[in-house]
């Protein structure tokens, strides 16, 4: 069953057509990648899917619910990590997760359990009481992912999650995405082909707001050695350095 359905979705900013009649579906437990050069409309599509932007025409349905007509119900089914993972830097990690949980209507013991589960899944135990602005970029990305999975969404939407991460953090993120996809569909953008190829089950390629193709990733690519030989060398050297 399709968790996400885009039907001839378009978005116009003044005279510029940023997204031009894009249609595709994302299935349950699927990692679906959006690829394209800068300005191809990837982030705009994510903002339309999450309801941050309203479409000029066409529809977006999450779990069969229209994100414009039934915004509240649709948003309850989505977890969203915007580009650069914006967070409230003055809050502590658990305080931020509690805030986001309450905004989504979770409270009391279920909220405590949801926070504990998210912290465990995202390996945030050592920083749970740390003030967010003191965290490294990798940990901030994890906190952002934790708030997005707190309410067990049907669809996880990630905008350039690898931005600014070092190779080690990117390798960790890759494993994390596959892990999260066991419970929900994942829609992820990137302009790094190799990253999407290693993570996604299917990819859509966009150019100038138009969908060029949707391709299945070969299973042997997904099953390719993780990490790659170069990544393995990088890990060996950096970890050896860290050990010294």
């Amino acid at each position: 069953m399709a968790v996400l359905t885009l039907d001839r979705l378009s978005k116009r900013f003044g005279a510029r057509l940023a997204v031009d009649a894009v249609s595709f579906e994302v299935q349950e437990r699927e990692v679906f990648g959006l690829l394209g050069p800068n300005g191809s409309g990837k982030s705009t599509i994510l903002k339309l899917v999450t309801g941050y932007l309203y479409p000029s025409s066409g529809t977006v349905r999450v779990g069969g619910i229209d994100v414009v007509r039934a915004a509240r119900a649709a948003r309850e089914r989505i977890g969203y990590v915007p580009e650069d993972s914006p967070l409230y830097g003055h809050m502590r990690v658990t305080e931020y997760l509690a805030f986001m949980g309450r905004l989504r209507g979770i409270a009391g013991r279920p909220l405590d359990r949801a926070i504990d589960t998210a912290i465990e899944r995202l390996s945030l135990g050592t920083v749970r009481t740390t003030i967010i602005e003191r965290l490294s970029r990798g940990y901030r990305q994890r906190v952002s992912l934790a708030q997005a999975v707190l309410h067990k969404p049907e669809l996880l939407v990630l905008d350039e999650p690898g931005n600014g991460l070092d190779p080690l953090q990117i390798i960790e993120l890759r494993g994390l995405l596959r892990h999260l996809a066991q419970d929900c569909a994942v829609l992820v953008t990137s302009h790094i082909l190799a990253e999407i190829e290693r993570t996604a089950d299917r990819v859509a390629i966009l150019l100038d707001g138009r969908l060029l193709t949707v391709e299945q990733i070969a299973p042997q690519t997904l099953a390719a050695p993780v990490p790659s030989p170069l990544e393995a060398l990088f890990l060996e050297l950096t970890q050896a350095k860290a050990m010294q």
Partner: protein
Amino acid sequence: MSRVGSQVATLVGKEVRTLFTSPIAYAVIAVFVVLSGYTFTVSLIVGKQATLVHIFFQSAVQLILLVPLITMRQFAEERRSGTLQILLTAPLREFDIVTAKFIACMTVLLAMTSLTLVYAGVLAAYGDPDWGPIYSGYVGLVMLSAALVSIGLMISALTANQIVAAVVSLGLFGILWAIDTLASLLPQPFENWLLGLSLLAHFTPFAVGAMYLSDVGFFLTVILLGLFLTVRALARR
């Protein structure tokens, strides 16, 4: 509490904590208290009258100068840092977000204004004040605060730069406060039209102890219009 009420309360709590995490709220309250304390002391010693009229007018002018510092970052900073995306994609209506920010700003301003109740206590302890003008003066300050906050939020929702939001708010508040000066230069019916927009003209009766339904209606209209336009500014995307 309903689910929406609980979500709004969560947002209000976060906004109030955010305001008190930055030094701005403390600086605003400190300036307000020092200046109003000075005015109260001087007017009591010189005038020897058990009245707070001077305090009400001075507080109103201070609100015009200080409210932009409270409202400027409410949406502008969220937009700049990207956290507005988090709020606007959560299962909330724009109205809920605007209401929460309005309540949070009013909480700070009411806390600040309530500190001047000490002066009313001093008057009661050492004199026999006329309580009517004191009650109406506080109602006027609350009305004025709410009107300024709703306009300030609207301007903050239109920009990603909090300095721009503060400067534009300050300019607009100044114009709306003193527009009756300009009105006096114009022929009828333009004079009356501009006088109808003057914050000073609508605040003065409250400060001197006269509450008119027309003035209450004016402030309620400004508050609701400001909040409505703020919601529209957020929804235009």
